[in-house]
């Protein structure tokens, strides 16, 4: 664990505490939405998960960029773990989004919800990352190709956002307008608490996953060394 970031224990405790706070705020403090009723509460878990997925992919791309520009050894596994976590949260986004769609509009899937559709595109893209990675021999070539692919993924994200704006979507409710959130102060606070706790949780998962991958790689080296 690096000396610069706070210890994993602190972060994990923070995630747990914030999660408790968030649950209280979501279900006992924030008022019920006038239009959507109780199902609006899904927003508090769906949107932070989506944002976290984007953050994971962004982290993966940043680590990929560092790998290509500095040749640091550690960045390959860090980028890979970022994609791994992002894909998990991406799948979660699709599932919670689908549940919200069913609750709001009565259908499990709708192609007219551009956000859901484009998240599907991203999910497909990052699933292909694993196929690509597993079909190339381990080594610097695989590290570089994976890194380039992760960078392409993050370029695809704003392009996706643009496509949402282009094809005007009037079914999937955009809560944050240009002027600010169309929600009460309590709802916004609940959202922030939820977002913070999910982000911290994702970070803890990332670190644990990364430690697992690193240990795996070290063990393989050790095994080869001891076998000779």
């Amino acid at each position, binding site marked *: 664990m690096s000396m610069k970031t706070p210890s994993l224990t602190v972060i994990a405790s923070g995630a747990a505490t914030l999660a408790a706070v968030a649950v209280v705020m979501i279900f006992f403090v924030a008022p019920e939405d006038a239009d959507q009723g109780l199902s609006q509460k899904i927003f508090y878990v769906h949107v932070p998960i989506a944002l976290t997925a984007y953050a994971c992919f962004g982290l993966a791309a940043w680590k990929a960029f560092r790998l*290509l520009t500095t040749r640091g050894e550690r960045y390959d596994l860090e980028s890979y773990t970022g994609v791994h976590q992002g894909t998990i949260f991406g799948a979660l986004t699709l599932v919670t989004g689908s549940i919200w769609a069913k609750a709001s509009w009565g259908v499990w899937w709708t192609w007219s919800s551009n956000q859901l559709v484009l998240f599907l*595109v*991203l999910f*497909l*893209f990052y699933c*292909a990352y694993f*196929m*690509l990675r597993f*079909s*190339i*021999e381990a080594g*610097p*070539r695989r590290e*570089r*190709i994976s*890194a*380039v*692919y992760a*960078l*392409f993924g993050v*370029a*695809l994200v704003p*392009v*996706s956002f*643009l*496509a949402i704006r*282009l*094809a005007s979507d009037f079914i999937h409710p955009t809560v944050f307008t240009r002027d600010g959130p169309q929600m009460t102060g309590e709802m916004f606070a609940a959202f922030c608490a939820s977002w913070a706790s999910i982000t911290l949780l994702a970070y803890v998962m990332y670190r644990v996953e990364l430690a697992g991958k690193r240990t795996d790689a070290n063990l393989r080296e050790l095994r080869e060394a001891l076998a000779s």
Partner: protein
Amino acid sequence: MSAYLADVAALARKDLRLELRARDTLPAMLLFVLATLVVFHFALPADVGDDPAYGLLWVALVFTSLLGLARAWVPEREAGALDGLVLAPTDRSAIWLGKTIASLAFLGAAEVVALPAFVLFFAPLDGPALAGVVLASLGICAVGSLVSAMAAASRGREVLLPLIFLPLAIPIVVGGVGASISEEPSKFLAFLGLYDAVFAILSWAAFEYVVTE
């Protein structure tokens, strides 16, 4: 700069000359796109109007380009020439640019056949739709050359290329179909232009990382 462009031109010319001699990729692409359009006629019910046909045109173009892209690096791979090119005293990105231009030529040739056939079989194509085809072809070849080099480095190459290319091609299809059927094609054309700019620059910059050992 002029040495760079000379390298690019030489590389593109080499690909075109190889294809003119071997004549295996381009005829396949032409036949494939025509056959696909015919299949689409049978796939569309009689009373759907024109819009679905435009969508299918874009499917046909994307999959036809996949056919060409799958063979894009085969000449280099078979002759073991890619390592030689990479070691040569030329900017690696020139290899990408040369290959993109050659792919563009092949795709363009396929489109010269496909578009009139589409107009004949299905529906007219107006100015914005054609502009969309041009812009989309640029994007397809720019990204496709890079992605096909990635697939060439892998063990499962034929299967892998569509998997890694299609998600990236989806915005192109969105832009192209929008340019063909929307009331305001200009914003879709602008979007295609943006896509081309972003991904061409990315592909140009990233190519050397993909091909070096």
